[in-house]
């Protein structure tokens, strides 16, 4: 299945890219998407969203999902 991966802000700069199209086996989680994309440990403070909603690392992903990783937010 294909997952649309996005990185934002300092995380995007550290990883050197704003996202990726990831082909991954069925029954994957958000944590596995991170591992496949970055091949490095996930920082403890990273926030995750699937299809624009906050989720935890063990949340499952499905074909066509948009999965985003980003640092703590600092708006307002």
């Amino acid at each position, binding site marked *: 299945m294909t997952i649309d991966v*996005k990185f*934002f*802000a*300092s995380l995007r*700069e550290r990883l050197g890219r704003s996202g990726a199209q990831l082909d991954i086996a069925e029954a994957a989680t958000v944590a596995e998407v991170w591992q496949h994309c970055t091949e490095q440990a996930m920082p403890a403070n990273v*926030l995750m*969203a699937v299809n*624009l909603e*906050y989720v935890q690392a063990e949340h499952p992903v499905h074909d066509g999902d948009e999965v*985003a990783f*980003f*640092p*703590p*937010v*600092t*708006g*307002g």
Partner: protein
Amino acid sequence: MQIEITPEPLYPWQRLEAYERQLAQIGKYGATAVFVGTMRDFNEGDDVAAMHLEHYPEMTEKYLRNIADQAMQQWSLLDVMIVHRVGSIQPNETIVLVAAWSAHRADAFDASRHLMELLKSRAPFWKKETLNSGTTRWVEKNTPG
């Protein structure tokens, strides 16, 4: 209800005046609570020259709309407005405007505070500062209050 994310300069008092002029509930609200967030020229002990605000467009809009809808259900509100800047911002410019209208003050005060706290802790915006020295850095965390 008005939820807007804009790269244009934001003039909160003009915004409020224009919005109140066309509010359908004229005569029904006795309380308007307003929060205006303004860019400082200092942070973490350093002089700040400019700022860039990045966001996750679709999620930001959806998140702000959700919390405004929830606030309308949780409190007795007549209307809610959230406007937030993105892009390049200079010191003394408005970053965010939150307003809540209600019949009596408690709902407007409580709802506007609640909306601001959720916006600051969960809405996907990120600030990158340019210091007077020319150095740039990401803001790592918001102040607690």
